[in-house]
């Protein structure tokens, strides 16, 4: 029989993960609405691959299958991979990325709770380095129907016809082309498919993730520190440079609502396992991710920088945690510990 406490709050890893999945639903709904049901195929592929890889690794490691397979953590990784990959990526890209995430980034580091790097972001970073072309083909809003997407995923159909650059990509590519007279506003205006705040359709996906994220906050699954520090950090640095040179640097709102910013703020940066844990550490970690994201977006070779930014900050987590230990009860007057 166990020792005190004999009472336990009804909480479990499973319920935490389940609520994260639920919180992803609004963003997914918006995704389907604007870009078609292809994303659902991707989510399905990633989920099956994740569960299979998880089961294999658990069996190899001699861990109780049912207990760990049911914890939902593999599904969260799978969904994040599907949501951060182009929804018309070929099936093998999604599947091999998911296998990499679960087998290498998660289980080879010791499984649930032990991975120093965010598995979904490891998968994203590897694939964008290995297959930059495939990782940059995004469907334009309303441009493709489900049959075309299905073919793109499983067939060998020439997909260039139905894709377009994401707004982030378009802005970055245009500015990198170094035409002295190109401006952010010019790029956005010249491309009719890019509209609204963060690109047509994408701002609604971002809004969906924002809604889901706020619900997670209310559920006390995540704390306010990371999303706020990330979004505020991104706003601040983008705003500063936008003020300095509005022609070259996009406005803060554009940054917040394009690419994976909202998904990142509430679902990726907030990964507890690979992120900082102290209140101050969380602020530093998320602000660091924001700064690196902006730098990579603005000057890097890749359209979106969240994955690299998260991985870079993951490395710094032990140091951040060590230097930001909160004062203990009774030791709050700056007394050395």
């Amino acid at each position, binding site marked *: *029989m*166990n*020792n*005190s*406490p*004999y*009472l*336990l*709050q009804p*909480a*479990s*890893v499973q*319920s*935490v993960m389940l609520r994260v999945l639920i919180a992803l639903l609004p963003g997914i709904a918006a995704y389907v609405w604007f870009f078609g049901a292809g994303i659902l195929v991707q989510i399905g592929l990633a989920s099956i691959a994740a569960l299979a890889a998880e089961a294999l690794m658990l069996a190899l490691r001699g861990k*109780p299958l049912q*207990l*760990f397979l049911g*914890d939902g*953590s593999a599904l969260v990784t799978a969904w994040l991979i599907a949501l951060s990959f182009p929804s018309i990526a070929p099936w093998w890209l999604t599947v091999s990325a998911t296998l990499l995430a679960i087998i290498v980034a998660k289980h080879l580091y010791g*499984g*649930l*709770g*032990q991975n120093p790097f965010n598995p979904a972001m490891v998968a994203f970073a590897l694939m964008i380095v290995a297959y930059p072309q495939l990782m940059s083909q995004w469907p334009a809003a309303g441009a493709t129907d489900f049959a075309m997407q299905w073919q793109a995923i499983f067939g060998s159909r020439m997909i260039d016809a139905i894709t377009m650059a994401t707004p982030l990509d378009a802005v970055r590519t245009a500015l990198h082309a170094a035409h002295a007279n190109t401006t952010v506003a010019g790029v956005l205006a010249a491309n009719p498919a890019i509209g609204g705040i963060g690109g047509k359709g994408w701002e609604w996906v971002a809004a969906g993730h924002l809604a889901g994220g706020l619900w997670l906050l209310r559920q006390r699954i995540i*704390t306010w520190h990371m999303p706020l520090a990330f979004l505020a950090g991104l706003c601040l640095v983008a705003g500063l440079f936008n003020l300095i040179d509005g022609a070259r640097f996009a406005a803060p709102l554009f940054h917040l609502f394009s690419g994976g910013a909202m998904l990142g703020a509430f679902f990726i940066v907030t990964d*507890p*396992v690979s*992120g900082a*844990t*102290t209140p101050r550490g969380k602020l530093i970690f998320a602000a660091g991710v924001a700064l690196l994201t902006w730098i990579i977006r603005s000057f890097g070779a890749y359209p979106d920088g969240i994955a690299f930014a998260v991985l870079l900050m993951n490395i710094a987590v032990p140091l951040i*945690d060590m230097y930001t*230990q*909160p*004062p*203990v*009860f*009774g*030791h*709050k007057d700056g*007394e050395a*510990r």
Partner: protein
Amino acid sequence: MTVLQRLFSFNGGVKPAYNKEASTGLPIAMAPMPAQLVIPLHQSIGGTPRPLVAAGEYVLKGQRIGGADGDVSSAVHASTSGTVVAVEMRLMPHTSGLSARCVVIQPDGREEWIPRQPFDYRGATPEQTRDYLRDAGVVGLGGAVFPSYLKINPGKSGKLDTLVLNGAECEPFITCDDVLMRERAASILKGALIMREMLGAARVLIGIEDNKPQAIAAMEAAARAANEEAGHPAMQVVAVPTRYPAGGAKQLIRVLTGIEVPHGKRSTDYGVQCFNVATAYAIYEAIALGQPLISRIVTVAGNVARARNYEVLFGTPMRDLVDLCDPRPDSDRVIMGGPMMGLLMPADSVPVVKAANCVLVGSPKLFPAPPPEMPCIRCGECAKACPADLQPFELYWFSRARIFGKAQEYHLFDCIECGCCAYVCPSHIPLVDYYRFAKSEIWARETQKEAADVARERYEFRLLREERDKQEKAAKLAARTVAARATAAAALAAAEKPVITAADVAKKALITAALERARAQKAGVRQENTGNLTPGQQAEIAAIEARRAEIREMAKPHLRQDD
């Protein structure tokens, strides 16, 4: 008078289901006299009292049967009159299942008291009063059972700002302080006034969780009366927000005064002292009525049909109490204390002791076995719940990996083992067990190191002493030689010019040797880094050491090899 009191807050804490209503419906009842009383000699923090009686002796109710031993210790008394049947090892009310020396009394049913008279504490010196309370067996009845006489000491300054009476009673199920405050408020406050006088405390704050409106009302009425009588509004009842562990002494002090007393520091250094309301009542009984501590209020609750509070003589088997309350058939365990910090009893035959504020009957349905332990996902729920502002998951990682130095660096010993972290953990990790393990390992290592230090010092001193003896011998020899030469010279040179006598030379040599010896001794004495422990800490360490030794003894048959 309702003075608005500014309240402070502590971080963390949890709000488990309180389950207190079941046992507060009926007034306190006197538990019936058991067939035999088994009174453990060791019922408080500190040294085990010496037995003062032997088998066959007749004892009176309230007669001292165990005398305080050492600086930290507290007497124990016969709970009723009768014959001592045995002084022997019996099973203790502790999870370890260890036995300790107990006095077994066969009651004669006459309840014949020792002569009782009030103690004139105003006419006595503080030391005399403290000795009296030690011999009356008064200890902290909130569950920590620290000898109260040691705490009734205002410290260097000679007076305190605040005396805190702890009536928070934050653990689920437990209501013994609640009913005590409802029924005996005036006596509690009389005890508090005695403590206030001895501590020179300017005010008395009585903290009660706001889920006990009746106790608050009773205490407020009594405080009003007491203040009017004293002509001075020193006593104040303060309703504090209900949140476990608001009844932790440090948490309550923080809530009422805003002062945070760090681990290892005396609260009196910060002008505060804190006592449980039941302790105040015990002090009233001891000083105003001349009755030593022989009983306490015990809540019997949990998986029983009729939960209730009883006044129970120490030594009464817990089983007797449980039987009074109709335990349900699926009951499978007895816990001493509450569901957050209580100790699982090795059997229901163990006696009620001073620490037993609650006898909690458990069942698999009431306290289900925790789901399988999962890995820590560093979600930080434990850190949010920790009332000591620790990072429990970091302590868990360090304890698990046996990196005890790091665990200490992250303030392992500031952990009060309240159980909040384990309560909220979504991975169902028995976190507190890891901290208990790490703490006992660290204590064991420190004790070992101390023993090694002592041995090394002894060895070094022996080397020094041998060296010194050698030098002394050499010096004496030299002196003798010089003396002999001087005598010879004196004989030779007649008695005309005596420059240095032989005696002078010998004396000088001896002085040199003595100086050498003093220096050697000085080098031999080293500062011990464990020297400045408080008596409480020393006692705690001693108690743990004893427990460890006994556990090791018990575990021996199970171990193939010597550890």
